[in-house]
């Protein structure tokens, strides 16, 4: 199975990542690409700052990816997660799953996002348009409920 996991400050190119995953792989029938973007929160937000735990972020995402690969027959998997300052409209996270059939690709991508949200060691802080540094984003109960679905 073809795993790509990267933690980086730089923007990524989801099209190039998806193309790299499927190139010359004619057994793949379904590809799901999830992109998480920085919202402007009604114009209030100047940027999100993402702090992460280097070393553990890679290790934990690797474990989450292994879980997905053991639950669904994946033919390819790419996860890219950014850290640092991210402006509204920019990408934060990319998950691409490839499989023979669509159900596995959809479920694995949804599973991976639920786990990334609640288990990967990243923390978001808001920087506001008025120049102040806002609060750390609270973990959402909805995200905890979402991850419970898979247990």
């Amino acid at each position, binding site marked *: 199975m073809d795993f790509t996991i990267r933690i980086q400050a730089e923007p990524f190119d989801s099209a190039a990542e998806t193309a790299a995953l499927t190139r010359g792989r004619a057994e793949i029938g379904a590809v799901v690409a999830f992109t998480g973007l920085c919202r402007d929160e009604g114009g209030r937000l100047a940027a999100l700052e993402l702090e992460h735990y280097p070393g*553990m972020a890679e290790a934990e995402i690797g474990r989450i990816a292994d879980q997905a690969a053991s639950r669904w027959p994946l033919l390819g998997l790419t996860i890219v997660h950014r850290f640092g300052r991210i402006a509204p409209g920019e990408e934060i996270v990319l998950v691409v799953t490839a499989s023979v059939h669509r159900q596995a690709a959809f479920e694995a991508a949804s599973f991976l996002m639920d786990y990334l*949200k609640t288990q990967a060691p990243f923390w978001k802080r808001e920087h506001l348009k008025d120049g102040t540094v806002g609060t*750390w984003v609270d973990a959402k109960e909805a995200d905890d409920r979402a991850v419970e679905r898979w247990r």
Partner: protein
Amino acid sequence: MKLVYFAWVRERVGRTDEQVVLPDGIATVADLVRWLKGRGEEYAYAFENEGVVRAAIDHVHVKPEARIEGAREIAFFPPMTGG
């Protein structure tokens, strides 16, 4: 043993990391938190709500009852908000 802190736990403690030498009798993560809270107001503030701050030993999530013997690096941080 190295301790590392992230996000608002880091801000409250006032440092990103530190080396500590633990007294006898600190067997679990919960023991370690209790010991840290006794070290000063900044630690008491960081860990004020029991059960909110998460821990990892050597890059693996652990529960408060996890044993810390042999750990190289223990991390404390708020609930994750990535993705």
